[in-house]
């Protein structure tokens, strides 16, 4: 139920957008994410965009996770506040 699928915004038409799920395109309601832009990634649940993917934050935090896992040190929670 709480499954949500990421897709790329291709076109915005008022209250909906055409989102591409790698070839499969579908109309998605964007009322919960009014600031989406063409080309951005959104997470879609039951036909509604529920959030934009945070590209900058994603890359930053994933490289932090990677650093943490690859270091000899143990996880330091304070890096994540």
């Amino acid at each position, binding site marked *: *139920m*709480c*499954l*949500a*699928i*990421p*897709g*790329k915004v291709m076109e915005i038409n008022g209250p909906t957008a055409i989102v591409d*799920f*790698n*070839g*499969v395109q579908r109309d998605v*309601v964007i*009322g*919960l*994410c*009014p600031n989406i832009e063409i080309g951005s*990634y959104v*997470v879609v*649940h*039951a*036909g*509604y965009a*529920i*959030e934009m*993917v*945070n*590209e900058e*934050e*994603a*890359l*930053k*935090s*994933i*490289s932090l*996770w*990677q650093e943490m*896992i*690859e270091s000899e040190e*143990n*996880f330091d*929670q304070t890096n*994540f506040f």
Partner: protein
Amino acid sequence: MKQIDEHGLEMPGDQIIQNPEFGKKILKKIHTISADLIHPVKLMHVCGTHEHTLAEYGLRSPNIIPKNVEIISGPGCPVCVCPAEDIDRAIELTKNQDIILTTFGDMIRVPSTHSSLSREKAKGADIRIVYGPADAIKIAQDNPNKEIVFFAIGFETTAPLLALELANNPPSNFTVLSAHKLIPPAMELMISLPDFKLDGFICPGHVATIIGMKPFIQFSEKHNFPNVIAGFEPNDMLLGIYILLTQIKNRETYAINEYTRVVRPQGNQVAQEFMKEVYGCTDSKWRGIGLIPNSGLELKEKYQQYDALKRFEIPLLNSQDIPKGCSCHLVLVGKKKPEQCPLFAKKCTPINPVGPCMVGNEGSCRISYMYRSRQ
């Protein structure tokens, strides 16, 4: 997000988060830290999609997760926790020839007291599966002479979708049977259960996408309890487990966000506003678990005209949540594993489900049945 994988869509950070070599490194860390734990730990997730990832990738196998780390499934399957009473009400509504009942696909096969929506549909009731509330609105617009009832189930991820529609003047022939539920109150109940000690929660990433980190931070602070908000790739879950184990070892009790590529600290504030506009909190019955205070959503006074229970008369029903022999009430709170139920894979199978957990893609019994060779 394993769906990216299946769709071949490349997202930021995927090369790391989907890399099996990275997964092996996390596992190595998990094994190192688990050797230092002074007692076996029990982690609970409350999300059907997390259960799916755990089972599909065999993460509970003794070759993967250390033996002293147990991951159990909590009440995170919305169709499973929907009480029989609500399904019985939906069935009653379909007896009215003017009504078209719409709901999510997972819901229609869930057994209620004497029947299920799919059985009623086979007998001729007008019950239609929708992908989301927008489809139900469309059916209402296309059928102005009919009454369209949307049987609304789901957690915080799903509730704002309907709130958005209700706040935007839906057609007057559209009403809602509201059965939405909230996750943090269920977590509160889980840690208060006697004879049941949990050490950490793996919190649902898409619930947090909407409500943000605050409710989970408050939970951690109130109960001195470690939480991690995790995504749905195997590596997301392994990272989540590692983060919890580290906290447990260090006796720390934070709420940490692993799923930062989607979950913002403040959540989706637009969605939160729509929820506040449309719903109020109410005590709510969870199937096989009972009444959980402030765990349900009901329509506010301003939106009462869309409440199916107000528009249509439904007789009092004598509903029964758990059929004889079924262990769903214990499976739902992690007290029993699906395969410990005497009916599992015998009388109760996905083709002929006895209890609610054998039905949908998020039900623990159904998932255990599908992936039983990988445990």
